[in-house]
């Protein structure tokens, strides 16, 4: 269905545009065929209206032959044939109409005179058809641009949401309160350690503040942030938290959205260390294999216990951000195996 018939306002504007075109047709008939004003009007008005609708058919042509440099020749010939056919049809209907009108005594000589103007009418028919065709191409392009804009806006909204979520994660107040409580405990007996804990905490907060203003950072920077966070948590948990790392330097330059890993690292500490009597080992691994990068965050987990509510939010956030940035090219997998909870992010290494 042509879009003009689903949006009545647009059809009205289009038909208004045909009034001057019809006037031009009338004028040409008078000049080239020597028609009187009455004859020209009687012929041009129905012909103009007819052609207005006939030309709408060019929309289907426009859909069937989108602008594509590879098929330029095929497109051009199809459009040329279509305009010639339309103009012929138009001239044929004009002649038929003229013969019909000739039944009235006033229009006796009309077919003869139209025959004189025939080539001009045909040429005008071709031109008008091409004009309407061009209009359709312009409208289609505008429509496509609007759709593109909408998609871009959706993507921006998604990115904003993820950022907001990350902000909430960063300002996780319990992390702050517990860290401040550790400092309060250290102040009297171990002032040196209290000072260094203040520095670690400030370092972490400052880094996250700087990061959120950028749209992407290197994996190296993201891991450096995780180090700072883990350093703070090591003061709190003491021997219960052990961190092992196996980082591939050739993977470190890949660009990631800021704070992508942070929710995973916080979850690993909270559920893998904080929820266990004996604590455990948290593992961070990055690896480059050809044009793929894999990032693994692993923590101990009791096989029987289900993940507590809240653990899924951080993971869901990471999945959404990976999907928003890489589409189908990025994967996030999570699961329990051998008593460890493991999240793996798999990304293309290229930009």
């Amino acid at each position: 269905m042509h879009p003009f018939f689903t949006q009545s306002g647009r059809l009205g504007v289009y038909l208004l545009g045909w009034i001057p075109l019809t006037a031009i047709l009338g004028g040409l008939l008078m000049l080239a065929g020597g028609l009187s004003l009455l004859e020209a009007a009687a012929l041009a008005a129905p012909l103009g209206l007819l052609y207005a609708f006939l030309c709408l058919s060019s929309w289907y042509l426009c859909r069937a032959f989108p602008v594509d440099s590879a098929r330029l020749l095929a497109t051009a010939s199809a459009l040329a044939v279509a305009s010639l056919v339309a103009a012929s049809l138009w001239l044929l209907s004009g002649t038929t109409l003229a013969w019909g009108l000739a039944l009235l005594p006033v229009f006796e000589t009309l077919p003869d005179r139209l025959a004189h103007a025939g080539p001009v009418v045909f040429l005008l028919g071709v031109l008008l058809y091409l004009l309407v065709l061009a209009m359709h191409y312009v409208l289609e392009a505008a429509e496509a641009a609007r759709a593109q804009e909408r998609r871009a806006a959706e993507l921006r909204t998604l990115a904003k949401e993820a950022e907001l979520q990350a902000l909430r994660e960063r300002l996780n107040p319990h992390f702050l309160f517990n860290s401040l409580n550790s400092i309060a405990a250290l102040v009297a007996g171990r002032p040196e350690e209290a000072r260094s804990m203040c520095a670690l905490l400030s370092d972490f907060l400052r880094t996250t503040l700087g990061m959120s203003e950028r749209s992407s950072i290197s994996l190296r920077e993201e891991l450096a942030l995780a180090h700072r966070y883990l350093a703070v948590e090591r003061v709190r948990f003491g021997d219960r938290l052990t961190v092992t790392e196996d980082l591939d330097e050739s993977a470190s330059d890949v660009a990631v959205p800021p704070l992508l890993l942070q929710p995973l690292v916080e979850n690993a500490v909270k559920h893998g260390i904080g929820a266990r009597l004996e604590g455990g080992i948290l593992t961070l691994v990055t690896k480059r294999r050809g044009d793929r990068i894999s990032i693994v965050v692993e923590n101990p987990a009791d096989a029987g216990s289900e993940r507590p509510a809240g653990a899924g939010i951080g993971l869901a956030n990471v999945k959404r951000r990976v999907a928003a940035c890489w589409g189908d090219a990025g994967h996030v997998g999570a699961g329990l195996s051998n008593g460890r909870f493991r999240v793996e992010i798999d990304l293309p290494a290229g930009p």
Partner: protein
Amino acid sequence: MLVDDEALARSLVRQLLAAHPDIRVLAECANGFEAVRAVAETKPDILFLDVQMPQLDGLEVLELIDRDAAGRPAVIFVTAYDQYALKAFDANAVDYLLKPFDQARFDRALERARTRLAAGGVPPALALGPRGAPLTRVVVKDGVTVTVLPVEKIDYVKAEDDYVLLFSGGRNHIKKQTLASLEDALPKERFVRIHRSYLLNVDRLLRVEGSATGAFKAVLIDEARLPVSRAGAQRLRALLGARPR
């Protein structure tokens, strides 16, 4: 007695206690299991209790120790989370300290504990009702042994006066709680009251047998047979009808 899984958090309380020479620290515990045992052994007057701890949290510790009527301690919760405050006061906690806190705030909490103890002890905790979300585990204490039962491991529960008997894999555990309050706290899609005295985990149901007298019996996977009342049968049917098979 100090209970917190973070050594630094315990050390802060110990430091603030230095201003109160009449108070002696009987024990420090790093988790809920140690705490339940140590409370039974040392009978402290005042308990500083963290809420968020691995495996057995502060509210569960309170639930377990509070059943020993004699020498019930005055409990001061110490936590970074404010969302447990209401629950804590339901449990008749003396105060609720939010980390981090200073000496003045700490002293106020201690003063309230002293007042409470001087007034003749601590009233028993109100029954710990549902915590918003259904329970995922039930804690029980046999002597000094604390057992954490994941709800899916519970076969059925039988009421015995003021107690409930929890049957799990051929063993049973006794707990001082009414069947109605336990039923409220357990997930509704798994547990159904089939009889005035019985709460059944429907995942353990094998079949229901009728008899000539019109009485129903629920047969469990381990061949145990439980009575089913007329209303219980209706509830059971409603639940099984609502569950995807």
